[in-house]
């Protein structure tokens, strides 16, 4: 519910239509299925160092102001939601000083890097810049 409401606030790119249908697009995939490639995570690391590190820290651990993006904190905040929701949070609101202003590809790449930092397995394919597919990937504990 929270997801859907948050998403309804969003404009254009990832439209409300996707939100309404989000559930039916879900394909039962999870972050444990090897959803990004190591090259992509490498590109994402460069994005992270340029645009995120100053607030979220080199170890992605965050500080009193900026939440951590790894480990128990990450799972607490994101378990049960989708990679689509996570992507949208970043695409819409980060970096806080110039939200939404990185190239679209950088945003998916940085998600891949955060996946890697959380030790979710690497795979052969890249995470695409595609709301339907991202919405179909659940952030779940290892089953």
């Amino acid at each position, binding site marked *: 519910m*929270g997801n859907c409401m948050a998403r309804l606030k969003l404009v254009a790119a990832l439209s409300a239509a996707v939100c309404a249908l989000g559930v039916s697009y879900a394909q039962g995939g999870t972050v444990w299925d090897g959803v990004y490639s190591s090259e992509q995570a490498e590109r994402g690391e460069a994005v992270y*160092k*340029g*645009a995120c*590190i*100053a*607030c979220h*820290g*080199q*170890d992605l*651990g*965050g*500080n*009193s*102001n*900026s*939440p*951590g993006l790894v*480990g*128990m*904190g*990450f799972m*607490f*905040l994101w378990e049960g939601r989708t990679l689509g929701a996570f992507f949208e949070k970043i695409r819409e*609101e980060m*970096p*806080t*000083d*110039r939200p939404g202003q990185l190239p679209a590809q950088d945003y998916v790449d940085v998600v891949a890097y955060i996946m890697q930092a959380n030790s979710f397995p690497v795979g052969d394919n890249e995470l695409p810049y595609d709301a339907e597919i991202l919405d179909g990937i659940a952030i779940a504990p290892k089953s």
Partner: protein
Amino acid sequence: MITSNAMCRGEPGKRELPRSILLSLSLTLSLIAPFASAQIESFSAVSDEMLNSPASGEWLSWRGTPAAWGYSPLDQINTENVGQLQLKWSFALDDTGAIQAAPLIHDGIMFIPSARGVIQALDAVTGDLLWEYRPAPPTEEFINSGAGTRAAVLPAGAFAGVGRGVQKNIALYGEMIYASTETASIRAIDARSGLLVWETQVADPTLGYFYTAGPIIANGTLVTGITGCDRYKDDVCFITGHDPATGEEKWRTSTVARPEDPGGDTWGDLPLRFRAGSDAWVAGSYDPQANLIYWGTAQAKPWARAVRGTDGDALYTNSTLALNPDNGEMAWYFQHIPGETQDMDEVFENILVDIDGRKSLFKMGKLGILWQLDRETGQFIKGTDIGYQNIVNLDPITGQITYRDGMIPRIGEELNMCPSTSGVKSWRAMAYSPDTSAMYIPITLNCELATFGPTERQLGGGGAGPVRRVNYHHPQSDGNLGEILALDIPSGEVKWRYRSRAPFNTAALTTAGGLVFAGDWNRTMSALDANNGELLWQVRLATSNQGFPISYSVNGKQYIAMPVGTGGASWSGSLPRELAPELSRPRNGSSINVFALPD
């Protein structure tokens, strides 16, 4: 002129520095000289007497005097003529980081800290730049050492606009400007030339330490409080005293009770490394008669008891500490909220006022309780809950706090709390006026559905802890996020409230002209009548008003200065975006804006 010898006069600092830090320091030194533009001839050395009772037109401490009233005794600008105020000059500040500046005024010169260590000296009448101190960007090696990232140093490629590197205040003493840095060092800068005289590394930034509060001077000692104490490490948060001539550390007082110390059992059986928080991120006050400094400490980390693993009081978190500036010894402490458990900080400014001969200290934290303590003994005198919080009950006789039913968070269970973690009050310092015997308090109104989550209990882990949050408007707010609240002292009775849709985002400034100045997030700076809260004058500035407004006079003319800028506190972006989405502001435009009556 300052020679390169003089630049090296300082002690190298007590601790062994990581090589990378030394490298970046030497680079800093080598890059300073070209930026220094002029030598100020008309500067007189600042003495303890001047600091303790400044001339009426001067502003020598971050809140005016060591008693931190935020009050100017000037009355040329007053309730009758404030409507005629006009801009005299404006000066763009560094836009590459966060601004919460508290300028100082001495001998007609404004010294102003801006982002990431930049300090400028301006002619306070014309706004001409006299000199500029601008540290070099951190080296690649420094960044890769990991030091900068936890300490909020920015990689070179990410300089523009990132909201870090706050330095709220600087101190002025002798012929020196003192600053504390985002890399956990303190600097002495020649006030006449802007050249670096010494820099001392106080703590290791790779452990997360940094400064956002600047130093104060008390009885000839330079005192600073560190922050960045949220991660687990084999060390705890502290306040230090230094020799202003050399930077040499004279004393270090932990703001956390160590296991073997008195009060050590208030953290249960947690070992030292799991005693985090108690950051000292707001500069203290000083009473020269008592020879005591008063310094606030922040909450324990992680925020929630259940996450940090103890229900104990966790001394000396969320306390006011009275320290002897000569040796750092604690004369007394008062813990405002023992075992605080949802990020309700009490670290803020300490306002020293005598009430009917009783030497008192006033303070307000995020819960919106105005505390009156006896500043000689630390004894509780009075507490006034301004009525915006739903978390604790306050015993009016003893000052003891008890949590209301169900208001101690459990991991994973949603709590409906007022205020949100933004607090009813934060670093935006209140001001006192002796003319009206009232406190003028910048208030932020909102509440939050908060769900606290766990962190890793291991070295390098910890932190504040994750919180799922949904902010909403405070039920008493009529949709307003901002308020200036005038409270009579010591009764605690409400004199008036002035509300605005946008949150107030600066300290308050009171003047003998019967005025209160403050600015909001939505670029509006206001002058209110201190007696009745009537709006007398407004102006819109380049971006969010942010920092500490001051008043001063030069050649018999009174000025009001308002800093504006962005970055800093987490909510200052998210709260207005979520709760007042029709408001927006430029992300740059940091500047200092100076007003006076027409000539």
